[in-house]
């Protein structure tokens, strides 16, 4: 199916999310829509899918102009969408999810679950998905849930498939598998729109690339372009993709963790006997597939976990058993992995968010009252220093883009006298420009002699920032290796395998 978008414009109030975007997608091709977070890619696809109504422009499928009033129409026309946040009902089975909205029924509206099961199995076998139609969606790994989304689209005979940031939630292996699936679908003659901001993926599968910036199409790019070319097109200026850092100036052992064990409320050891040391002025990056104890490790460092044994010694002081506030006051900075939940109060202003970790005492609190003047001055200064793009310091955190939200978190955490920085997924869901900025801040922190623990599921980020890399698997250390360890070795270690000739690097 051939899709033509002509002059699509979509406004939200005074904001123009899509400014006269035109696009053509041919059958049997993977068309990448490349752009930063907030460039308007998802808005465009929601228009295509009938979730939003375009203010101007038209959608044409195989030469026929379409007028969608809802997603039902778009689906009937042969458009299928794999949403970034899966549109699956967790407590339903795969078969129920696939049939929803398109149910085959028997007498008096009775569900024909068998028909749906057969359909799921059929599609699953054809593409090698290995999906059990009777499994509850909430019990499935994320990668498999995504396949259910694909099956859902295919079961409705979709000829055009839209993948909206499909790799954001996937592990590296799952990402590779998804790429294979997309190629297979292309072979089957489907037209595919692949929305992403990840350059590596674009270059791996795209037949054509359209770059979107600030709601406008800035041009087509050749899939053979270099990362740097694509990035500068996407951001609108040359971008540094590698992090420049000097040799570390190592100091004394600053953070010493011994036999750390964290047990979750269900009684499973999520962190199981970790021991490591970070020296002053060093970045230790933790690599691993999500869910292998990283979250529990960072939370244990901050005193946010209940059942912690072992010892965490920072500059000679034991942290285990101390309250989170005492730990913060002793100079631990924390960039949490989910800024929306743990990093910010969305309903607070930027200024208010900037004082969250110092809400008890000076400089912002005196005799139990807020020193509004001092806070505003501080916020004003940080807004500029950290290049937070917002109307003013009274803007609500909820209204900022992901990158700017993260900059507020980073500004808050780095504006104190730190003795340790813990950064969990510091650039997840953040635009390239902000990634560059945040990475520089982390390196600057390390260069000022502060030990840094970085946790990331993005191997690129781990490799870029690390002085040493610690690979975690099921709450245990697979190995602590130098930053220049080959990616394949790291990838292998992330599955829990330890190469025979591997040597741990001591400090």
């Amino acid at each position, binding site marked *: 199916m051939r899709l033509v978008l002509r002059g699509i414009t979509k406004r939200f109030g005074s904001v123009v999310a899509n400014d006269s975007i035109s696009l053509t997608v041919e059958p049997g091709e993977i068309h990448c829509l490349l752009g930063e977070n907030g460039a308007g890619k998802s808005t465009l696809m929601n228009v295509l899918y009938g979730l939003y109504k375009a203010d101007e422009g038209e959608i044409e499928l195989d030469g026929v102009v379409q007028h969608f009033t809802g997603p039902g*129409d778009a689906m009937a026309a042969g458009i299928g969408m794999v949403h970034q946040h899966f549109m699956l009902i967790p407590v339903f089975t795969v078969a129920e999810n696939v049939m929803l909205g398109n149910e085959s029924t028997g007498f008096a509206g009775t569900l024909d679950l068998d028909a749906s099961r057969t359909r799921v199995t059929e599609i699953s076998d054809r593409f090698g998905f290995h999906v059990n139609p009777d499994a509850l969606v909430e019990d499935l790994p994320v990668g498999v849930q995504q396949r259910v989304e694909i099956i859902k689209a295919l079961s409705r005979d979709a000829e055009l498939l839209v993948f909206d940031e499909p790799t954001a939630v996937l592990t590296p292996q799952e990402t590779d598998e998804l790429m294979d699936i997309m190629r297979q679908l292309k072979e089957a003659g489907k037209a595919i729109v692949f929305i992403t901001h990840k350059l590596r993926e674009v270059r791996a599968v795209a037949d054509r690339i359209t770059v979107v910036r600030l709601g406008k199409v800035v041009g087509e790019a050749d899939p053979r372009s270099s990362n740097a070319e694509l990035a500068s097109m996407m951001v609108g200026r040359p971008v540094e993709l590698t992090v420049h850092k000097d040799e570390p100036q190592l100091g004394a052992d600053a953070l010493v963790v011994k036999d750390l064990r964290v047990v979750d409320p269900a009684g499973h050891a999520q962190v199981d006997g970790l021991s490591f040391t970070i020296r002053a002025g060093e970045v230790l990056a933790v690599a691993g597939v999500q869910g292998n104890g990283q979250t529990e490790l960072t939370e244990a460092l901050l005193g946010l976990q209940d059942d912690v044994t072992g010892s965490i010694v920072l500059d000679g002081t034991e942290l285990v058993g101390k309250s989170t506030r005492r730990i913060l006051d002793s100079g631990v900075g924390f960039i949490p992995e989910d800024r929306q939940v743990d990093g910010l109060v969305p309903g607070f202003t930027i200024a208010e968010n900037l004082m969250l970790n110092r809400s008890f005492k000076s400089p912002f609190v005196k005799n139990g009252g807020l020193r509004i003047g001092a806070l505003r001055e501080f916020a004003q200064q940080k807004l500029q220093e950290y290049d937070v793009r917002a109307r003013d310091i009274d803007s609500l955190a909820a209204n900022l883009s992901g990158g700017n939200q993260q900059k507020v978190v980073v500004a808050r955490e780095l504006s104190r006298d730190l003795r340790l920085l813990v950064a969990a997924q510091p650039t997840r869901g953040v635009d390239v420009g902000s990634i560059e900025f945040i990475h520089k801040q982390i390196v600057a922190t390390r260069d000022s002699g502060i030990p840094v623990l970085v946790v990331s599921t993005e191997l690129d980020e781990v490799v870029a920032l690390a002085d040493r890399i610690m690979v975690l698997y099921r709450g245990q250390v697979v190995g602590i290796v130098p930053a220049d360890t080959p990616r394949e070795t790291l990838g292998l270690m992330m599955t829990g395998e330890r190469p025979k000739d591997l040597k741990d690097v001591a400090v």
Partner: protein
Amino acid sequence: MSTVTNPTPADQGGLAPDPAVTPTKAAGAKKLPIIFGVMAALLAIVLLRSAHEGDTTFQLSAETDFVTLPDITVPSMLTAWLMVLVCVAVAGESVRRLLAHVRQPAWLPIVFALAWMTGFLSWAAADGRIRVVSLFAGAVALAIPLVFGALGGVLGERAGVVNIAIEGQLLFGAFAAAITASLTGSSLAGLVAAMVAGALIALILGLFAITYFVDQVIVGVVLNVLVVGLTNFLFRQVLTPNADTLNSPERMRAFPIPVLGDIPLIGPILFRQTPLVYLLYIVVALVAYALYRTRWGLRVRAVGEHPKAADTVGIRVNRTRYRTILLAGAIAGLGGAYFSLVSVAGFNREMTGGAGYIALAAVIFGKWDPIRATLAALLFGFASNLQGVLSAIGSPVPSQFMLMLPYLVTIFAVAGLVGRSRPPAADGVPYKQQ
């Protein structure tokens, strides 16, 4: 990939199993033996502190029955202590299963509850008779409005609309049923009017909750207060002066079903009731079937769990919600007819007495499932009837204590004693389309 046993990666979509849920499951298994232990100990203490020597007679059928079962007379204290032993044994089995990490089967609490109740009754009714049939038949009758109300609640919440207005729907249903049945002389017309009245309240709820995104709990409570005020006013100003024409409906009579009603024990309990009860059986079965086995039910549940997902597959979320709560209101209104057509003939001010709130509790206790909610409502009905029976035979238990029972059970249920109680994910969340 699906066979990989890696720890499930958490995701950003909120679809991975909620880690906070697992511990509750484990804790739920621990709770059962604890409840058993405490309940058994309580019964033992009661027996020790105030012994009642004598015999207790359990009467299993009335003299007029087609098949009469003999009365069972047992020594009160001995039986009570025997039942304590059974309770302790069940508790022991439960502890054993806990330690062996084996699942706690459903028969454990059932056996326990039966033994506990038998023990308690034989103590409480020492030197008296317990009419088993009327104890249960009365429980079913008292549970009618609770079950209808709970079904209305389950339907509404399954579709994502918290139906606090059950009380209002019951009361308005009772009001409409009384007037209509008086005017037309037909109970059937009264039932229809009750449904319309319940649906009307639901429509107002929907208008505010679905169309205008007002907090559903607040709208529900306000509606309840509104209905109380409105019916009180109309009762005083309109019904009382014209009681003969407007407020003297014919009372629905019991209608024994020929063969079924003659089954010993079960027949008199379930099949010698008013037509409203038979209607109840049909409605429960229909709702349970429709919710899980039909396209309509699948869509209702989808809309209550993840409205956006439903929207993206072309389901009109708010239209589905409207339809469902109108149906829910109609069913709850039907329950209201019990008060003015079955319990007594005629409407009286605030005659529902908070039944709507107990029904709401049954919804939660029943984990948003029509069958379980029905059973929960029956339990509450049993507790209410037990209170009446015990005060009639002059038992030592203060009736006020028994009156508390449904509420106590509810508090424990809501506090999570009965394991995980997970509401529909989008329950109470209005859906805004962009």
